[in-house]
């Protein structure tokens, strides 16, 4: 029998939620291991951090000096590197610290002895440090995404990269638009598909946990939010939550004009 492709799951700064897309798969996890050889997956008890693998999945963002070295090694040891989740693809919720004026002082605000803490001033996505072959967006990602990615790689092709706007899936699902019927500031028009339009299904506005879609007209949406009666700082907070990125706010940056 031909040897099975090898896989590793690595973790950086994160909540572990994305790895649950695998651990909550149930029996499919056993099916999966019939097709790939998992070399490293600490949560599942498989340990070999430095194994050379075909595909390395990486959860979490880079926040310590040690992380910056680890990720280099992981990249060297992997044929393909795929990030899972917001933390790894965009810095994630902990990148809120990138927006702070003095993040360097945070350890001191919290720890009596900040000198014990190895913490960079920023939370950085994996791609800021090494080449990433494919990104799975979402906070958290779901089992569908990861099995589609592995399935495609096993067929010898890259996974489909779907950057479609959430609204399209929202309408496929037959949900009633929260923005139109409730005046809620829904992020759907600039948010990447993938979750299945969960929040609108629950009658609430999307808060953007899957990250930015293709051609996001952030400024147009921000203007619309103002029109719904939101204040500037409320609009700003909507845009700066799970994938904080200062340039996105209020048309100060891109997305305002059609280009």
């Amino acid at each position, binding site marked *: 029998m031909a040897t099975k492709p090898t896989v590793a799951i690595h973790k950086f700064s994160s909540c572990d939620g994305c790895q649950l897309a695998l651990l909550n798969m149930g029996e499919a996890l056993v099916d999966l291991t019939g097709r790939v050889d998992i070399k490293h997956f600490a949560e599942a008890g498989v340990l070999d951090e430095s194994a050379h693998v075909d595909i390395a999945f990486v959860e979490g963002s880079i926040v310590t000096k040690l992380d910056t070295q680890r990720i280099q090694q992981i990249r060297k040891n992997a044929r393909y590197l795929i990030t899972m989740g917001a933390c790894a693809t965009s810095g994630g919720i902990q990148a809120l610290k990138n927006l702070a004026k003095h993040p360097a002082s945070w350890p001191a605000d919290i720890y009596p002895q900040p000198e014990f803490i190895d913490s960079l001033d920023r939370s950085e996505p994996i791609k800021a440090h090494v080449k990433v072959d494919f990104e799975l967006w979402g906070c958290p990602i779901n089992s569908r995404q990861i099995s589609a990615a592995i*399935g*495609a790689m096993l*067929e*010898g*092709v*890259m996974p*489909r990269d779907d950057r479609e706007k959430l609204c399209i899936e929202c309408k496929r699902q037959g949900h009633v638009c929260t923005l139109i019927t409730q005046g809620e500031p829904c992020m759907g028009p600039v948010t990447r598909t993938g979750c299945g339009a969960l929040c609108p299904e629950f009658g609430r506005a999307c808060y953007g946990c899957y990250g930015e879609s293709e051609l996001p007209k952030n400024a147009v949406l921000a203007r619309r939010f103002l029109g719904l009666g939101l204040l500037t700082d409320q609009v700003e907070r909507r845009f700066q939550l799970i994938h904080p990125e200062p340039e996105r706010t209020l048309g100060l940056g891109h997305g305002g004009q059609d280009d």
Partner: protein
Amino acid sequence: MSRDYQTQTPIAARVVEFIQESDAIFTLRLQLEDAAERARYQFMPGQFNMLYLFGVGEVPISIVSDPLDDDIIDHTVRVVGRVTRGLAQLKKGDRLGLRGPFGHGWPLALARDKDLLIVTGGLGCAPVVSAINYALKRPEHYRKLSIVQGVKHANDLIWQHRYDDWREREGVEVLLAADEAGPAWPFHVGRITELLDHVTTAYDNCVVMICGPEGLMQRAAELLLEKGVPPYSIYLSMERNMQCAVGHCGHCQLGADFICKDGPVFVYPDIRERLLQEGV
């Protein structure tokens, strides 16, 4: 009312031969697995199939073999993205799905007893290969066959031996050009349209088949019009994103046409306006 027997669901085909034409180009020789399907399958040059790679997806690919060949259907594919990269890994004996044929092919009947001029640009344009093969097999039907091919870099030319082979044939002329070439390049250096001054086709009694990037097709067609080729003798093969191939999915619309069923081959005046039109 349904037109073809096999339009919505693929049938299984087997790779009987895999030919690596160049680094990024390969030919898949396919045979339908089911004997009855084989017997029923008919196509014309310029038509295309939707090839399905298991678990990955479908892509439109022109048929390059001859309708009278045995029951082997050839497809020459260039590796550009997901599906084509996957197809490139197939080996002899592997299976894939196929549905088709779709679209309207080249007007080879119309070209009968006339000169046939074939103009292609880019990296070996598969759709016209079928027309070339067709004409070469039936030399008595065509007065003359001229093949004009342009590439960006000299190294992009694949199938050098095929061109050599074609050039040897009676009644066939082959003109090649490269935008950029080294000193060893024996052919024209410059634009493909410049070659059109050197073809010996009877402009007023020919049929032209053009395939390539839209800019090239437009320049060539306009030049040929100037040279006196009747507008309704110029045919082009068009490309757009394609999902269903039966005119339902809406992706391949070009103005009011659906390329999959109204094309991919169009007569020039019908789409003259659309070429290079931004956003169409």
